[in-house]
């Protein structure tokens, strides 16, 4: 369904960024503009999300064609359940981190284009979630990255500068590969529109026709790029060092948002397009189940397993709160990759849910760490202590967020992990499920480490700041953390409602029909339907139609290989 308002989600941060350039020396006004922009984004995305959740399937995807150029030629902007969920979460996280920064960021830094950069970062992030065009995705990534480079080096301390090169050079390298891969996609298929690509792949699948040579290498190139942005195993090494040096609010924003953009693109592109092997199974009810390329799936499985497990071990070995949290970002990304690797609708729904809860929770933890640093002047666990006595409110907030991250019921992490791990066991990936559970246990260990060292330990060191002074100066920070923790609680206690949206996101990722028809028009999927009908006519009693109704239990590879 066409709705031109969705592009406002990109226009709002752009406009706010421009306005705050003009207001560069007016602190209060630029803060007001920033808060207004995040709130508007949050409100607009929530209202659009509610609208498409209430709508029937055929109207559940909002599309706007830029400049009125029809789909495969112009740039499509698509707002479906997945992007809606992520944009809502991103706006909430952005608001939290932004408000939090008022109490930790230095006035000098603030004047160095901090406000516009925060807005331009959101512009890039929102555009990557919304765009329906591969090359536009590249551009969105670049906008986001440019803002993140600048935010990374904002203030320009020695540590920041020396760490920034790793991040910048790696991302430039990844962008180059992305650019080449996009060019190759165009050379191979003559289109860059994601829906059009999905259509072409679906037609190949329906006809059981081989995809062009080199398709798999393209898939691997994309996986490399997005894996680097999303910090998958073994491309994660840049992350902990980078997040260690930046101002804590920015670290919270990066930890919440940036890796998720990488994961999102994998979730968007791989089940629909790049994980396909050009075969399919026709189920009894006439729907098509696309085959999955075993190589790509294996890569994803290995990435998921190692990302989850090795990273959590790395986190246990750390002794600084910031480092523990940053390494945990990686470990949690492993669960999302797990969800994608399973590639059923339910698992993808779990992945979507996990992504948004992790954004909120992780950002909240980073922001708590910021206040802890204010109390103790350091994030070294040996020098922390007695925080619960000094500041019980912070303790409560931290505890809720930490337990959400670990995934204790009824908090939000539980519902994400439960669905993903259960799907893993259903689909015969029990090893991933086991690793997921063990990882969860070790996560608990490292969160308890922060808790016992930081909050329960007797107050040992003569800390730099008086509790009252910290509490007075950190009012925005408390507000921000409270906002995010309330969001996290809502995601946990209201998981049923959120899963309604997430399930639809999973369905849309699993079955490309709605996405394709929404972007390209109603008859774009006709050829696929024709081909499916032909195949049903040819093999009326195929092996698949016998047990076709148990959709989640069919293993596509076994069915597809003749």
């Amino acid at each position, binding site marked *: 369904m066409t709705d031109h308002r969705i592009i406002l989600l990109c226009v709002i941060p752009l406009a706010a960024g421009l306005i705050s350039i*003009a207001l560069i020396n007016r602190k209060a006004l630029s803060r007001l503009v920033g808060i207004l922009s995040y709130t508007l984004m949050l409100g607009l995305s929530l209202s659009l999300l509610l609208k498409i959740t209430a709508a029937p399937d055929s109207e559940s995807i909002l599309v706007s*064609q830029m400049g*009125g150029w029809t789909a495969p030629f112009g740039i499509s902007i698509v707002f479906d359940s997945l992007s809606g969920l992520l944009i809502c979460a991103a706006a909430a996280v952005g608001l939290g981190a932004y408000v939090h920064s008022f109490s930790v960021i230095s006035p000098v830094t603030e004047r160095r284009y901090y406000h516009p950069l925060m807005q331009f970062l959101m512009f890039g992030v929102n555009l990557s979630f919304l765009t329906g065009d591969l090359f536009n995705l590249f551009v969105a990534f670049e906008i986001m990255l440019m803002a993140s480079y600048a935010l990374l080096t904002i203030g320009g301390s020695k540590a920041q500068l020396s760490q920034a090169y790793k991040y910048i050079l790696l991302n430039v390298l990844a962008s180059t590969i992305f650019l080449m891969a996009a060019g190759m996609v165009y050379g191979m298929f003559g289109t860059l529109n994601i829906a059009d690509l999905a259509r072409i792949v679906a037609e190949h699948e329906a006809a059981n026709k081989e995809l062009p040579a080199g398709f798999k290498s393209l898939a691997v190139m994309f996986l490399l790029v997005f894996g680097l942005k999303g910090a998958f195993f073994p491309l994660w090494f840049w992350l902990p060092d980078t997040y260690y040096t930046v101002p804590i609010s920015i670290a919270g924003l990066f930890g919440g948002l940036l890796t998720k953009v990488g994961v999102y693109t994998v979730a968007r592109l791989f089940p629909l397009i790049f994980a396909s092997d050009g075969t399919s199974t026709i189920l009894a009810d006439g729907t098509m189940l696309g085959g999955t390329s075993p190589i790509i799936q294996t890569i994803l499985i290995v990435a998921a397993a190692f990302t989850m497990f090795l990273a959590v071990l790395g986190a246990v070995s750390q002794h600084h709160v910031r480092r523990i949290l940053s390494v945990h970002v990686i470990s949690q990304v492993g669960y999302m990759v797990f969800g994608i690797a399973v590639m059923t609708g339910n698992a993808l729904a779990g992945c979507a849910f996990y992504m948004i809860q992790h954004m909120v929770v992780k950002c909240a933890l980073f922001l708590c760490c910021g206040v802890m640093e204010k109390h103790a002047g350091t994030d070294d666990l040996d020098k922390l202590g007695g925080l619960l006595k000094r500041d019980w409110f912070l303790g409560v907030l931290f505890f809720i967020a930490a337990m959400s991250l670990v995934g204790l019921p009824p908090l939000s992490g539980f519902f994400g992990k439960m669905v993903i791990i259960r799907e893993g066991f259903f689909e015969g990936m029990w090893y991933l499920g086991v690793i997921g559970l063990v990882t969860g246990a070790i996560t608990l260990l490292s969160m308890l480490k922060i808790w016992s060292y930081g909050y329960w330990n007797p107050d040992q060191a003569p800390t730099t700041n008086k509790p009252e002074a910290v509490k007075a100066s950190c009012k925005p920070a408390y507000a921000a953390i409270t906002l995010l923790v309330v969001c996290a609680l809502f995601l946990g206690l209201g998981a049923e409602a959120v899963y309604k949206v997430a399930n639809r996101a999973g369905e849309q990722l699993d079955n490309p029909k709605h996405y394709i028809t929404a972007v390209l028009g109603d008859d774009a999927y006709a050829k696929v339907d024709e081909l499916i009908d032909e195949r049903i006519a040819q093999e009326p009693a195929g092996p698949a139609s016998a047990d076709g109704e148990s959709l989640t239990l069919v293993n596509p590879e076994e069915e597809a290989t003749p």
Partner: protein
Amino acid sequence: MSSSILRTANGIIFPLTLLFALYMALKGHNMPGGGFIGGLIAAVALVLYRMSHGPDAMMRLMPVHPRVIVAMGLGIAALTGVVPLVFGEPMLRSIAPYISLGVGDPVHLPSALFFDVGVLLVVVGVSVGMIVRLGEEVEDE
């Protein structure tokens, strides 16, 4: 860097280059050219002026700081993109009417022109700002 030959020659080169930049920017709608290229040429003119007359002279030539030019350009481009939304059209939708001036042929005036002007300003602002900034850094040392 500054020599009297360059300075004198620049008296002719500078206005001509700016004119050429304008020409390139305007013909861009149907032919090679456009705001980006026009902006680059204009930036080259300004940089050459900076070489011949010194950094201060060039900054006097700019009515505002380069960052303001960038912001203005982005603003104009974004505004051109947003206006169609008000009329229920998709963003960046452009119209290309022929406007009669009373004399001669009607003028082809696409709304994309405003977008191009925005691009031109951004490119001028970015290039000049970049060179000014890097130049300052190098000269300081």
